[in-house]
C-alpha cells in the first residue's frame, strides 16, 4: 500500500469532498468529524513520506493508471505516456505546509464560521483547495499542473466571496477569478508552445529534451510571469490586498499558502523545467535570476511601504504578505543568478545555496506566522465589527490569548530573535550581502518597517484602556480557535529555537529536489 501513498494523498480528500453533501445530511457532527479525519489522514500520510523523501533524499514516482506504478516509461519507450506524480523534497516541503495550514484553518473555522446551510459548501471548498495545492505540488505533468491550478483558483475565489450578503466580497471573488483565469490562460499558452515542440507534457522529459530555442524562452515567460502574478509579486500584486481583506480569516490564512503554491510553480519552472546546467546552450541564468530579484526587491519595498500607511488591519497584513513574498523571491533569485554552468558553481556552493535555503525556509516560516496573524485578525475584526484600526482599542484586556499570539506572530514577521522569521532572514541577509550588499541593506530596512507597522497594529488594537462600548461581539473564543492559533504559535517558536533541525530535515532535501549539483 505504501507505494500508492502519493495518489492517496490527493484522492482521499477528493473522495471526502464528493461525499460531503451526503454526509452533511447525516449530521453536522458527522460531517465535521469526517472532515477532521480526512485532513488528519493527509497530514499523517505526508509525515510518513518524510523518512524516504527527506531523510534519504529520495524521489517517489507514481504513474497513474499504468500496470506498474513505479515504471515511468512503458517498455521499450524513451518517453512517458501517462500522467506521472513525482514527490521530491521540495514537493513534500510545500505539501507539509499546505497540510498543516489546512488543519489549523479547519480547526479555527469549526466554530468561527456560523452554522448555516452554507457551511457544508465552505468545508467542501476548503478540502478541494487543499487538493488543488497538494496536487499541483506533487504532479510532474504540465497539463495536470494547469488543472490543479484551476481547482485551486476556483475554490479560492469562491471562498473569498463567502460572505455574499456583504457589499464587497463578491467583487473581490470576481477579481481573484479574473486574475486566475487570465494567468492560467497564459500558462496554457506556454504549455502549448512546449507541447508543440516536444510532444509531451512531462516536465522531466521536456527538461531533458529542451534545446532552449526562442520558443522555449517565450514559453518560460508566458508561464513564469502569470505565476509570479498569482504569487503576488510587484507590480502585479494589486489584487492581493483586495481579495485577502474580504475573505474570512481562516480562508485568508489558506490563501497565503495558495499564493505560495504559485510561488512553488515559479521555482519549479525555473529549476526543474528550464534549468539545464550541463549543456552550454541554456537560458541565461544570470538575467533570469535578476528578473526574479528585481521583482522580489520591488515587492519587499513597495509592499511594506504601502502597508505602513493602511488603516485597514487585513489590508495591512495582506500588503505584508506581498512584502514577505519578496524575501523568498530575493533569496531564490540570488540562488538562480549564481546557479549556472562553468566556473560559477563555486559561488553557488559558497553563498547561492545558502540564499536559496533562506528563501525556501522563509516560505514555511511565512506560511505559519502570517497564518497566525491572519487568524488573530479574525478575532480582532469579529470583536470590533470593523476592520478599521482607528476604531479599535484595548483588546488585550479581554483577549489575552489572542494578544500573546499576535505578539509572537508580529515578532516573528519582523525578524526578532529567537522566532523563526529571524533564522531565515539572517540566512538571506548574510548570503545576499555576498552577492550584492545593497540588496541586503534594502532587506534589512524593509524588516525595520515591518516591525514598525506591526507595532502600529498592536498599539491600536491591543493597547489602551478597556472600552467595552466598542466591543461588537462578546462571545468567547472557542476551543478550536485557540487550538488552531496555539498550534501555529508552538510551531513558530519551535522552528525559531531549532532552525537547524528544520533545515537539515526539510529544507536541504527541498534544495536537492530543485538543484542537481554535479
Amino acid at each position, binding site marked *: 500500500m505504501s507505494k500508492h501513498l502519493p495518489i492517496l494523498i490527493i484522492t482521499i480528500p477528493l*473522495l471526502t469532498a*464528493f461525499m460531503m453533501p451526503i454526509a452533511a445530511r447525516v449530521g453536522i457532527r458527522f460531517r465535521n468529524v469526517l472532515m477532521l479525519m480526512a485532513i488528519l489522514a493527509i497530514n499523517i500520510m505526508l509525515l510518513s513520506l518524510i523518512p524516504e523523501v527527506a531523510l534519504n533524499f529520495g524521489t517517489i514516482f507514481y504513474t497513474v493508471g499504468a500496470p506498474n506504478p513505479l515504471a515511468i516509461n512503458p517498455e521499450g*519507450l524513451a518517453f512517458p505516456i501517462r500522467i506521472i506524480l513525482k514527490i521530491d523534497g521540495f514537493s513534500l516541503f510545500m505539501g507539509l505546509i499546505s497540510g498543516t495550514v489546512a488543519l489549523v484553518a479547519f480547526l479555527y473555522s469549526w466554530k468561527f464560521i456560523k452554522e448555516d446551510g452554507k457551511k457544508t459548501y*465552505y468545508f467542501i*471548498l476548503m478540502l478541494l483547495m487543499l487538493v488543488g495545492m497538494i496536487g499541483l505540488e506533487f504532479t510532474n505533468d504540465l497539463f495536470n499542473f494547469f488543472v*490543479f491550478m484551476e481547482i485551486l483558483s476556483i475554490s479560492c475565489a*469562491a471562498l473569498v466571496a463567502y460572505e455574499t450578503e456583504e457589499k464587497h466580497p463578491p467583487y473581490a471573488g470576481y477579481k481573484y477569478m479574473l486574475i486566475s483565469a487570465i494567468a492560467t490562460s497564459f500558462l496554457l499558452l506556454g504549455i502549448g508552445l512546449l507541447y508543440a*515542440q516536444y*510532444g509531451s507534457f512531462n516536465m522531466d522529459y521536456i527538461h531533458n529534451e529542451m534545446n532552449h530555442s526562442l520558443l522555449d524562452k517565450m514559453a518560460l515567460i508566458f508561464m513564469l510571469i502569470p505565476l509570479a502574478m498569482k504569487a503576488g509579486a510587484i507590480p502585479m500584486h494589486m489584487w492581493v490586498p483586495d481579495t485577502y481583506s474580504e475573505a474570512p480569516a481562516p480562508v485568508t490564512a489558506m490563501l497565503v499558502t495558495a499564493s505560495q503554491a504559485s510561488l512553488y510553480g515559479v521555482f519549479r519552472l525555473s529549476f526543474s523545467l528550464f534549468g539545464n546546467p550541463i549543456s552550454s546552450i541554456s537560458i541565461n541564468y544570470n538575467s533570469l535570476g535578476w528578473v526574479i530579484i528585481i521583482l522580489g526587491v520591488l515587492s519587499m519595498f513597495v509592499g511594506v511601504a504601502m502597508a505602513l500607511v493602511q488603516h485597514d488591519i487585513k489590508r495591512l497584513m495582506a500588503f505584508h504578505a506581498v512584502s514577505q513574498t519578496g524575501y523568498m523571491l530575493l533569496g531564490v533569485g540570488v540562488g538562480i543568478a549564481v546557479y549556472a554552468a562553468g566556473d560559477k558553481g563555486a559561488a553557488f556552493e559558497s553563498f547561492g545555496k545558502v540564499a536559496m535555503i533562506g528563501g525556501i525556509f522563509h516560505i514555511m516560516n511565512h506560511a505559519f506566522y502570517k497564518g497566525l496573524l491572519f487568524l488573530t485578525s479574525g478575532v480582532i475584526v469579529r470583536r470590533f465589527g470593523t476592520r478599521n484600526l482607528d476604531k479599535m482599542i484595548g483588546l488585550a484586556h479581554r483577549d489575552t490569548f489572542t494578544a500573546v499570539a499576535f505578539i509572537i506572530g508580529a515578532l516573528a514577521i519582523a525578524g526578532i530573535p529567537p522566532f523563526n522569521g529571524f533564522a531565515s532572514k539572517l540566512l538571506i541577509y548574510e548570503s545576499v550581502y555576498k552577492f550584492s550588499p545593497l540588496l541586503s541593506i534594502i532587506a534589512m530596512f524593509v524588516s525595520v518597517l515591518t516591525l514598525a507597522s506591526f507595532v502600529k497594529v498592536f498599539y491600536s488594537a491591543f493597547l489602551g484602556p478597556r472600552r467595552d462600548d466598542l466591543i461588537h461581539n462578546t462571545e468567547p473564543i472557542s476551543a478550536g480557535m485557540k487550538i488552531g492559533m496555539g498550534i501555529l504559535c508552538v510551531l513558530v517558536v519551535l522552528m525559531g529555537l531549532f532552525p537547524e533541525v528544520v533545515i537539515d530535515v526539510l529544507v536541504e532535501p527541498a534544495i536537492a529536489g530543485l538543484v542537481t549539483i554535479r
Partner: protein
Amino acid sequence: MKIASFLSLFLIAGFLFVGINRLHPVGQPLGNQNVFIDRTGELTDITYVDTMDDYYLRNGQRETGSNNIVASVVFDYRGFDTMGEASVLFLVVTSISMLLYPSIRLKRDTVDLRDPRTGFPMDMTRIVSNGTYLMFPLILAFGAYLVIHGHLSPGGGFQGGAVMASGTALLIISSYITSHLHRTYNIFSFFESLGLTIFIGLGFAGIGVTFLSNFLANTSPAFFGRVIDLGPNSGYLNSAGLLPFLSLAIGMEVFFGLSIILVSMFHLARKEKDEKGMIK
C-alpha cells in the same frame, strides 16, 4: 500606462507571430504521418512509435480496447486530468450553490407567473409545452446514447451530459421547473455527488494495480472486456473495460451539475425580476 500597455500588447502579438512561425508547419506535427506505416514507407509492427501521440494512435486500441482514441486518452491515459476536470465542475456547482444560497434555498416558490393585464399565466402556449413534453425524453435519450457509446463514436461523458442538461434548459424555459426548487435541488445534488463518488470508486477499484488503471479491458466480454480486432472495425459495445463506466459516471455528474447551475441561475434571475416588480 494606457500607451505602454497598448505597445506591450503589440509587442506580445509580434513575438507570437515570430515564434509561432518557428513551430512546425501546420499539418506536420511530430510523429509519423500514417497510422500503420513507418517513416520508410513499410507496413510496421504497430508498437513502433515516435511520440506520445503515436503511441496513443497505435497502441490505444490494443491496450484499452476502445475504438475512440480520444476517449481512451481522456479516460485512460490521462484519466487523472479528467478526474480533476470533473472536480472543477463539482467545485463550480458547489461554489454557485454557496454563493446563491440565500436565494435558492426557498422552501416555496413565491413567484406567480401571471400576466398582469390579461390574467393568463405567462406560461408558454400549448404547442410549446406539449412539444417540450415530447422533446425532453428524446433529448435525454440522445444524451444517454452519446454517453454510452463514448468509447465507440464521437461523444462521451461530458458531451452527453451537456446534451442531457440542455433538456433541463428546455424544461426551464417552457416553465416546467418552477416550484419545489428545494426538492429538485436536493435530488440533483445527491445524484451529482453519487456520480463523482462512483468515478473515484472505480478509480479505487483498480488500486490493486494502480489508481484508475483499466483493469477490466481485454478480460471477459461479460464485463465490457471484449477483445476487439485491431484497426478499423464496426465497434462492439461491450469493449473498452472501465471506460464506459467512467463515462457513465461523468455523464451523470455533468448532467446533474449543469442542471443545478441552470436552475440556480434561472431562479436568481426570476427572483431579481420579482423584486423589481417586473412580474406580477
